[in-house]
């Protein structure tokens, strides 16, 4: 039995992407530090990018370039997100002297 018959390349890419997304989700849900939560969000965004590239590469029409351009825009938006997110974390740290999200509960009902 040939090894490649178990999963196709597209399935392998999508499985890796699902794994990366789950790791990012676990990090975002489990950690207390806001910076690590942002790292988890970045991992999830990268998993989405990998999905887009995989579907472009193994899709019916790779000449269309739509997947590549989608990923380029996605990278640009993610860069803006990272800049604003880290600026917010730094601003919160200045006001509260902590980046532990368990302590940032002043809006808790």
């Amino acid at each position, binding site marked *: 039995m040939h090894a490649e018959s178990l999963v196709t390349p*597209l*399935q*392998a890419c999508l499985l890796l992407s699902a794994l990366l*997304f789950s790791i990012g989700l676990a990090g975002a849900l489990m950690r207390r530090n806001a910076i690590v939560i942002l790292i988890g969000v970045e991992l999830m965004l*990268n998993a989405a990018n990998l999905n887009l*590239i995989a579907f472009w590469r193994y899709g019916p029409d790779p000449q269309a370039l739509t997947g590549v351009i989608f990923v380029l825009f996605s990278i640009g938006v993610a*860069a803006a997100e990272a800049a604003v997110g880290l*600026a917010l974390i730094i601003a919160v740290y200045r006001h509260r002297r902590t980046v532990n999200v368990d302590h940032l509960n002043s809006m808790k009902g």
Partner: protein
Amino acid sequence: MTPLFGLLGFIIAASAVAAVALRNLVHCALALSVSFAGLAAIYLFLNAQFVGFAQILVYIGAVAILIVFAILLTGRGELERGAGFSAGWMIGLGVALAVFGTLAGLLLSSHLLVREMPPPAPTSVRDLGDQLMTHWVLPLEVLGLLLTAALIGSVVIVMKERGPR
């Protein structure tokens, strides 16, 4: 293709786990860069050269450095005091495992994904630029506007506050 892909996937997954699980935040940022580099290699592998280099430039060159600066500016004594994991970490782990189980089960049982791949499609940066400047020029301008606004916004957010408070 498979052994190299498997190796890259293992490196990416291991460094991603390290990036969210390590105690020292600087080590987290370094592991995150390794994961980004592995993803860039996967993109090169999938014939998306420009995206691979953009990934290196934007993620390793900018986002990882931004995270290192944020760690520098927020102090590092934070994690040594607490356990590092939130109180409901088991729920979080359960949710993540459930998500991965569902996704993997669906992917492996799908019949739509088993079609063989077409031959490689070489794409040049010239084609990409052509498309960006003709068909996608409006989204490109909007993205430029968004990046400018994000840049100004983040500078305004972290600016020292003056005046009576």
